[in-house]
């Protein structure tokens, strides 16, 4: 069985939705953050891909594009010991508290 990212040739009759959504600020942030992490040699394109491709199929398919990038950034930074999952969770709850 192929991994969830390997879409080429998977059967579908779905028409191609040609509308484009306006990026939310967090999507700009994630896109740029990867660029910054690449420049600092903290994550490269292959690592970003590996983090995305390591997602469980159900999560891969239900996540938006930049949610997949977010999952991958976390996976790689935690794997490298640059951040811990616990401190990311704590910082996320701070955001909840501040923004409600």
């Amino acid at each position, binding site marked *: 069985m192929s991994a969830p990212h390997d879409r080429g040739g*998977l059967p579908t009759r*779905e028409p191609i939705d*040609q509308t484009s959504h306006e990026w*939310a600020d967090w999507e700009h942030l994630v896109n740029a953050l990867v660029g910054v992490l690449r420049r600092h040699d903290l994550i490269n394109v292959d690592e970003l891909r590996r983090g995305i*491709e390591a997602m469980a199929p159900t999560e891969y398919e239900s996540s938006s594009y930049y949610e997949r990038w*977010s999952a991958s950034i*976390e996976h790689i930074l935690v794997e490298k010991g*640059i951040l811990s999952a616990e401190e990311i969770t704590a910082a*996320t709850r*701070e955001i909840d508290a501040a923004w409600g």
Partner: protein
Amino acid sequence: MSDDHTHPGLQHHVPLSERAKRAVAIHRLLARKNIVGPDEVRETIDRARRRSPADGARVVARAWTDPTFKTRLMDDAPSAVFELGYRLSRDAGLAVIENTDRLHHLVVCTLCSCYPTSLLGQPPDWYKSFAYRQRAVVEPRAVMREFGLHVDEDVVVRVVDSTADLRYLVLPRRPSGSEGMPEAELAGLVTRDSMIGVGEARKPA
């Protein structure tokens, strides 16, 4: 500087998913630890916003008008576009593939979304969609028809699948009626879709 200044105008009123919030949290932590500078992300966003298909269109128009540039472009695209001031990401190769009266190229990235962002800006949403990634390699003519492009049956359609190491820019056919037009006006005929292969360059008005 408060923590919020490191975040480019995040819309507090928009409910964010857990994954979105975790990305914001990751950025905060990296900034707090001085692993990334306070303004780096904002500056990177601004730089990314300045890139657009107009850049790729300049490259195409130059190739249409300067045969020696075109030769260099087909032979070594990263060096040729550097002549026009475009520097590619260091880990991304670029190949230019030419559409002719007998051969039409269509670009997809079945595995994700690899795309020549240095020349075209961010890919459109449909380029990243499951439907496009799944169908382009199976029924390219049907996909192109959805974009309004009818490729004659006697024209060979070649689908190229991008990778993280090699991205593709289509050199579309120069439209008839554009003879003698200056390079800057020619660039105005070159659409994003024509450089992906789901469209053709516009005909001059």
